[in-house]
């Protein structure tokens, strides 16, 4: 597992208060991890902070699962 994936999962666990083993690549923030729309906004902000990137709103809308976030950040995080 990449370093980025580890850091993403850690953030998800902290923000959504879910068990680590539930945070799988294909887990949907809303459907599987109990997030609401405001939680997802906050998650994206946490990713921005952690990885020092800006995630534009249209990109944020495509980040629906843990894997989506990891993929986006692997591509865009410096």
């Amino acid at each position, binding site marked *: 597992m990449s370093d980025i994936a580890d850091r993403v999962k850690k953030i998800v666990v902290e*923000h*959504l*208060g879910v068990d680590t083993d539930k945070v799988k690549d294909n887990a949907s923030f809303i459907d599987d991890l109990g997030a609401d729309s*405001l939680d997802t*906004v*906050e998650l994206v*902000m946490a990713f*921005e*902070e952690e990885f020092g990137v*800006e995630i534009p709103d249209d990109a944020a809308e495509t980040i629906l699962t843990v894997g989506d976030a990891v993929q986006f950040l692997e591509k865009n995080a410096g």
Partner: protein
Amino acid sequence: MVTPLACGVDATWKRILNGESGANRVEKFKVDDMPCQIACQITRGDGSNGSFNPDDWMDPKEQRKVDDFIIYAMAAADQALADADWKPEDYEDQIRSGVLVGSGIGGLEGIEKSSLLLAEKGPRRISPFFIPGRLINLAGGYISIRHGLRGPNHAVVTACSTGAHAIGDASRLIALGDADVMVAGGTESPITRLSLAGFAACRALSTGYNDTPAKASRPYDEGRDGFVMGEGAGVVVLEEYEHARARGAKIYGEVIGYGLSGDAYHITAPTPDGDGAYRCMEAALKRAGVMAGEVDYVNAHGTSTPLGDEIELGAIQRLAGNDAARITMSSTKSSTGHLLGAAGAIEAIFSLLAMRDGVAPPTINLENPSVETEIDLVPNKAKPMEINVALSNSFGFGGTNASLVFRKVAA
């Protein structure tokens, strides 16, 4: 209730009757450069010995999103609904159950912190939970979501009268038929550096007792020099009388009177002649259909400010006239400090407990009264006495006044 004395009604009441103070030095932020360095703060812990454990009342993940006033209100509402044994599960019960919980200030700490974050890191760092975690009516919002209260969903913001107005207004909603059950009260988490600085600038806070915090809140005493800020929440379950009787609910007392008035005088100072306080008590007693001389116990607003205490006392003396010597009045703020928007709610609860237990709680630190009065101010020691009618006063910045009258209900 959650108060600086304890988490929970019984634990708080025990300490009130023991004449204890909840005041101590503020350690959670820098106070060396402030004139007032003390407050009545909630003791956090694992929940034992009356300590407050926020995790007992709200998921840590949710706590992160809100200011403490919401957590305190959730705790107080959970306790109140459990005590009342009211769990509206079916839809019909839910739509007849509402919430009316207010706060004087709301989420000041979150506003303070987010404002600094905005200045430092810009708008993209402001959390989506910033607004919903600070709004005053979100205390009621969270309570309604947890307990399925789909009836009236309302909030009051009248500074230090908030808690009393909330209970009074909620009782009227029931009387008018808008709901059968209302979860009502006030909550406040005002102990922040910004707020302490602001109230100190208003010259409202005690500044002379930083080394002896337990002595600082001393209503009616000639050594008083301002109020001591407190934090916490008080919530009651109000219920239509027959509705409560029919299900055999525990009844602490009946709300028989509620009066409101405005000073129309000054933003922070009460009218020197106590006209606003007088009219609000008068209106409450008229509504209750009782004479001033029939009031056994008054839980005073009595914040320990040089101006306010004597004005309130004067208004009560005027109201009671020749019956003044019959009246027993104390300020529990001497123990709890001033919980601002929660004050009226916790004091309504103290008034009900005073009736239940037949004891007037003491005004602690009352060593040398600043004025002579026939009214018994219950100095320093609780006074056992039969209490059938109790009146609770709350007066707030902006010249907003509320009085509640309670009557003991025969078992």
